């Protein structure tokens, strides 16, 4: 991109940005509500969507200019899982941590209190049903990873289905499923309603895991480089605002509003602050709560984060052949746009493009040799 294109007004100033009504849509809502968009010559119009399928379709058709995306889903679209492949661009991460796995009270009554007792039950009496939010989505990947690490083959030993987040609690109450993995406030909601308990948080599975991402089509970024940069800059400032402790109460109110999640403030506030109650007697302040910025560690579109989702799509057979891991991740993770946006708002972006993580089963992921990593799991498709 030329220096001329990098400066000056956005090519398109009113941007429709899709989001799902979840606690981690915060940066999009805040950018519009607190005027971070106007600082960058934009008007962000948040567009509330009712399914991830609609999020994807609206983005691909150009009805929305950008969208909150599940990281895994972005890579599913890029590689054509369950549809035609389309070039996507992730210009920043929007969140980390703060998802969870809920099990039903009915399972509790059958002696299940944790992962080990669940695995024992599944082996003894097959027939459990679990739900996640999208076939290529993050929640599917957390749930599969967690079950597999406990020795359960998630694609064969349990029935796996997809349920819209706001319907999770009702379906669990109706006995249609025994467990689910979803974003907040829908795990906290099950605890409040006495329908289920939080058996694991997503940050327990992978401390500081990537969550949602800001996605655009590559075609949109190519045609509107200044808009893409301005949007990323506005959301960076919004993400920083979301993380400030003093703003947390206002953030909870913004998210609970009818135009966003439409729930009680109390349903969001505790877990947003990192205060957890698992519903069966354990209360704690989480060391890795939902975060939006953390000095740019959350927002950096790490290559290793993108690669991880590719390894899991391969692991579970959603990718039928070995993908060109690094090539794909380098195309999707638009570090160029991210760095320009950081420069515009005076944030120092880390130079590294890979980061090292240790998952709950002791597995280490640092972005090196993704093909070997994908093949290293005993339980896979």
């Amino acid at each position, binding site marked *: 991109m030329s220096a001329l294109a990098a400066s000056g007004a956005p090519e398109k100033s009113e941007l429709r940005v899709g989001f799902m009504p979840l606690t981690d849509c915060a940066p999009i809502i805040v950018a519009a509500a607190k005027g971070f968009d106007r600082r960058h010559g934009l008007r962000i119009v948040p567009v509330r969507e009712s*399914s*991830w399928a609609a999020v994807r379709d609206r983005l691909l058709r150009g009805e929305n200019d950008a969208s909150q995306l599940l990281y895994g889903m972005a890579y599913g679209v890029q590689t054509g899982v*369950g549809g035609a492949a389309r070039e996507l661009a992730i210009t920043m991460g929007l969140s980390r941590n703060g998802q969870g796995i809920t099990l039903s009270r009915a399972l509790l009554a059958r002696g299940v209190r944790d992962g080990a007792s669940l695995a024992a039950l599944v082996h003894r009496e097959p027939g459990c049903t679990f739900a996640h939010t999208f*076939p290529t989505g993050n929640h599917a990947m957390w749930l599969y990873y967690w079950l597999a690490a406990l020795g359960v083959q998630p694609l064969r030993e349990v029935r796996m*289905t*997809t349920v819209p987040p706001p319907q999770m609690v009702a379906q669990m109450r109706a006995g249609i499923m025994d467990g689910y993995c979803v974003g907040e406030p829908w795990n906290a909601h099950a605890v409040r309603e006495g329908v289920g308990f939080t058996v694991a948080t997503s940050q327990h599975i992978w401390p500081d895991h990537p969550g949602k991402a800001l996605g655009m089509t590559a075609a949109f970024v190519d045609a509107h480089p200044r808009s893409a940069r301005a949007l990323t800059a506005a959301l960076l400032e919004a993400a920083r605002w979301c993380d400030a402790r003093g703003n947390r109460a206002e953030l909870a109110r913004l998210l609970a509003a009818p135009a966003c999640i439409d729930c009680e403030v109390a349903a969001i506030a505790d877990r947003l602050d990192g205060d957890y109650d698992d519903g069966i007697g354990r209360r704690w302040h989480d060391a890795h709560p939902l975060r939006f910025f953390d000095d740019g560690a959350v927002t950096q579109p790490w290559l290793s984060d993108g690669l991880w989702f590719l390894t899991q799509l391969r692991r579970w057979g959603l990718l039928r052949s070995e993908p060109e891991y690094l090539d794909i991740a380098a195309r999707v993770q638009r570090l160029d746009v991210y760095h320009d946006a950081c420069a515009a708002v005076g944030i120092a972006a880390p130079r590294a493009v890979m980061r090292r993580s240790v998952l709950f089963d002791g597995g280490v992921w640092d972005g090196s040799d993704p093909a070997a990593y994908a093949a290293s799991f005993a339980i896979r498709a």
Partner: protein
Amino acid sequence: MSTRVLIAGAAAAYRPRLCAALEQAGCVVLPAPEPIVDLEALVQDLAPDLILIHAESPDRDTLENLAVFHERAPKPVIALCARAGSALSEQIDRAGFSFYAVDELSPALLQSLVQVSLAQFQREQTLRESLAQAQAELGDRRDVDRAKCLLMERYGMKESEAYHHLRRAAMRRAQKLPDFARTMLRDESQLDHFAAEMARAARQA
């Protein structure tokens, strides 16, 4: 063999006509409970060739999961459109429906079924719009009448006089007559103020 269609999450109002149109086109419309509680189980039981679902239905993600994991399950037509051409895709965009179809369904048949469905959708849309317009006009007339009656009762005006004053007052504000009538009805405390203004205008005339 006729195409087996499942209509999921379509607005109840246009469901009967949609069924009739699809049946006329040679489809079998499969019976489904309303509301559908477990869509995945229903799709697996019924094995439809084509699913019509409201574009805003949250249940679409359930269909996406089936499409990825089950060879025989209907796939999002937006994916099939990439092969069939973009004209169909554009029509679907405007329809408010999403379609999921099995691979075996021929593009020509799919296209005609989608068009049959869209024609019904547009017909319903037109009906709804004209109904809404008729209701709005009726409401306008009712509000103007009530404002007129109020002036007649309060100030002993004749009907033609009341109407004339209302119309002039609306014109001075560059408002539509029904909108001004509603302003007046909403805020009766302002009525004397309006009346004084009307009297002034009458004197000037």
